[in-house]
């Protein structure tokens, strides 16, 4: 099955990290991604630009409404994702628990629709 792992973190907290800490996190992500590619679980994955760069689009009664900012203002923001192939939910959860940001934020595990 395919699962989307949505990585939520607090942009404010990440912003407070020192350059050295940011470098270390970046490196951890590199190692983690590499291991997913090697184990054959990796399908896609990216970090996202901060929510300050986000734009939300709606269409109501045929009229387009475009607003600045993310869909929902919350304490933690969507900061990146992995699309993985896993045998079942337990394997997907085990991978989610290894994502570096999971120690500060949280990862939502969502199965993809099949077919």
């Amino acid at each position, binding site marked *: 099955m395919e699962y989307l792992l949505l990585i939520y973190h607090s942009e404010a907290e990440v912003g407070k990290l020192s350059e050295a800490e940011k470098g270390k996190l970046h490196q951890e992500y590199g190692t983690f991604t590499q291991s997913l590619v090697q184990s054959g679980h990796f399908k896609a994955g990216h970090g996202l630009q901060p929510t300050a760069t986000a734009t939300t689009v709606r269409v109501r009664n045929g009229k387009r409404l475009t607003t600045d900012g993310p869909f929902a203002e919350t304490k933690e923001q969507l900061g990146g994702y992995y699309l993985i192939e*896993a045998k079942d*939910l337990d394997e997907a959860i085990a991978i989610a628990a290894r994502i570096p940001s999971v120690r500060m934020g949280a990862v939502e595990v969502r199965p993809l629709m099949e*077919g």
Partner: protein
Amino acid sequence: MDIERLYRDESGRILATLIRLLGDFDLAEEAVQEAFAAALEQWPAAGTPDNPRAWLVGTARHKAVDRLRRQTRFQAKREEVGRLAALEAPADGRDEPEGAVADDPLRLIFTCCHPALAVEAQVALTLRTLAGLTTEEVARAFLVPVPTMAQRLVRAKQKIRSAGIPYRVPADAELPERLEAVMLAVYLVFNEGYAATSGDALVRRELCAEAIRLGRLLCELMPGPSEPRALLALMLLHDSRRGARAGPDGDIVLLEDQDRRLWDQAQIREGIALAETARRDGGPGFYALQAAIAACHARAPRAEVTDWRQIARLYDLLLRVNPSPVIELNRAAAVAMAEGPAQGLRLLDALEADGRLRDYPLLPAARADLLRRLGRWSEAAQAYRQALDLTENDPLRRFLAGRLAEAEARAGTA
């Protein structure tokens, strides 16, 4: 062969095997129902097969294959076709390896108690599938309306399917995280068997036996932690009284009136030994304290020499570990025995006033008993009537009706 009895005793385990074979809860449930329907139709004329369980597993499997084949004719989904091919490969359920089948109930319970499901859904699903309770019975056990429970079960099964929750016993490293929920489910399956919420039997023996068997499997699976041993001890000690809890007509015999020679001494010895090692290794946990209370009863050769003060103290500790109105009720009953009915009644009145046990029949039943002991007959009669309105368990109803008649007669002559 009594097919109804076979259904009660075996349908949970047969369902567990079918879920493993089919990978789908709903399909498995329907197939098991159809297989039992086929048994009702065929066995009276053709005779009972040598191995009824294997016959039912094999028949349910064929029914499921038929159903899948009908479905795939309309919607040729790749996945369904693949599953069908895999299912048709082996001849039938008869050549299943014994080990795989024996582990099925354990697989089922770990899947039902997966942390990706809400806790109340975990236990409900375990009771519905493994314990074979109807949705109505599960709803009653949780004190929620039937449609609410039905929806909760549907959602849980949908999530198992669509999120890919696996059907297996987890790896060793995952066990500690998973154990708590599974122990709670086993405990509630046992309780449902020990105090059946509906039907004509006071004890559903096969549910207690299944829970004890699962308890043993958990101890084998996790020899380290003490709580599985405490849970097993607790169940063994309660179950040891089974033969004495009901009279010849299935009537309730209260603990104080039981013929203690009917208690199963082998089970008591095993239970007390387990309770002691669990308490020594793990301290006073939820199950260890309850096992210690059960051990107090088991050690008393006659009801009069029961150490009620110690039991009341253990209930105090238990309330600290796990605050619950039902435990408060039990504690009040112990205090009544240790310090007199008036003390117990004071605690029960407070419990009634706070309303958390509004629909729980044993609260008015306990009040009625203390009022009876105090000779306040018309109040006792009133409380027995209240309790009768709240239960559908036949033996409990007969017991309460008998006590009510006595209280009414005494109230009339007083």
